[in-house]
């Protein structure tokens, strides 16, 4: 039966990779849409294509090398990176949901990018501003996707699964993004970021422990327990901060 052969750790892995990649794809797509609508689609697509080629080359260069790193060392390094990265995401999501940090608004970001691109003026021949803007947006957000997939995938020995889930997330968000065009602000980004933060911290905790030869009770089963624990703690911190601090309502681009 599928239900018994798929471990709870794999379910959390799929969820973490999917949500993290979807969030990064929303951010990249906002930039590409702003570039395409303002300066023309040719440069937007060229910048996107070159960024994807560079990212593919990076994965081809570093992906196979990671497989040769001893698993305990890999898990310790990956665990440490995920612990830091996850705590950063969780902290930001907590501050945003308590109103202490302005929420990420894709519409506001879209408008800011359009204004920036219009102010840059147009040159003769190839549109370098549009190309660089699309390239940077896709490359930097894509790099986070690559790091998420490589770290989560290799540590769990599920690189193929992680890459497939990431591709599905990217394609799905891409299709939805093209259909709804400028309504990416409807994506519940902060809730997704909070979910990703909880899962990254959970994996970070688990693999840091594995790397340091901690014997977790129940092995992989400990991952959902860690997820539940961090969810509860996050909820408590949000409730505590909300009780103590006034809420701000401004939105940041």
């Amino acid at each position, binding site marked *: 039966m599928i239900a018994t052969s798929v471990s709870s750790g794999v379910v959390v892995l799929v969820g973490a990779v999917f949500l993290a990649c979807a969030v990064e794809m929303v951010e990249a797509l906002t930039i590409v849409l702003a570039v395409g609508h303002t300066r023309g689609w040719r440069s937007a697509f060229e910048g996107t294509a070159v960024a994807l080629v560079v990212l593919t080359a990076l994965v081809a260069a570093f992906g196979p090398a990671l497989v040769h790193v001893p698993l305990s060392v890999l898990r310790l390094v990956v665990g440490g*990176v995920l612990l830091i990265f996850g705590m950063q995401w969780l902290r930001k999501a907590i501050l945003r949901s308590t109103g202490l940090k302005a929420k990420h608004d894709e519409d506001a970001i879209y408008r800011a990018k359009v204004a920036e691109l219009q102010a840059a003026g147009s040159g003769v021949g190839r549109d370098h501003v549009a190309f660089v803007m699309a390239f940077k947006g896709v490359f930097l957000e894509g790099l986070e996707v690559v790091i998420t997939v490589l770290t989560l995938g290799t540590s769990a020995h599920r690189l193929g699964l992680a890459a497939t889930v990431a591709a599905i997330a990217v394609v799905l968000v891409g299709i939805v993004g093209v259909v709804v065009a400028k309504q990416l602000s409807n994506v519940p980004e902060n809730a997704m970021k909070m979910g990703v933060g909880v899962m990254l911290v959970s994996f970070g905790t688990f693999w840091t422990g594995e790397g340091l030869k901690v*014997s977790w009770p129940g092995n992989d089963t400990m991952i959902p327990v860690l997820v539940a624990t961090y969810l509860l703690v996050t909820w408590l911190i949000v409730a505590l901060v909300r009780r103590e601090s006034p809420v701000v309502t401004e939105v940041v681009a």
Partner: protein
Amino acid sequence: MRRGSSLPVRLVRGFATFWWDFLVGDTPELFVAALVIIGVIALLSEAGHFNAAAVVALPLLAVVALGISVRRAVRAARRK
């Protein structure tokens, strides 16, 4: 990035800047906390063979680090 630097220098600088922003950024306390957590758990698990203590301490220290970092941000927001 300074003009006139050679491509390899700019690439190395860009690579270092990316990882610095990625791991440290505006929350150096979380970076330091992760190093402290790894050190403490290494002592408990590898050196002291206190597995049960390490199982409890690892998530507990992460929660404490997160709490301290959020508290810092709350105080900074109040000062504004």
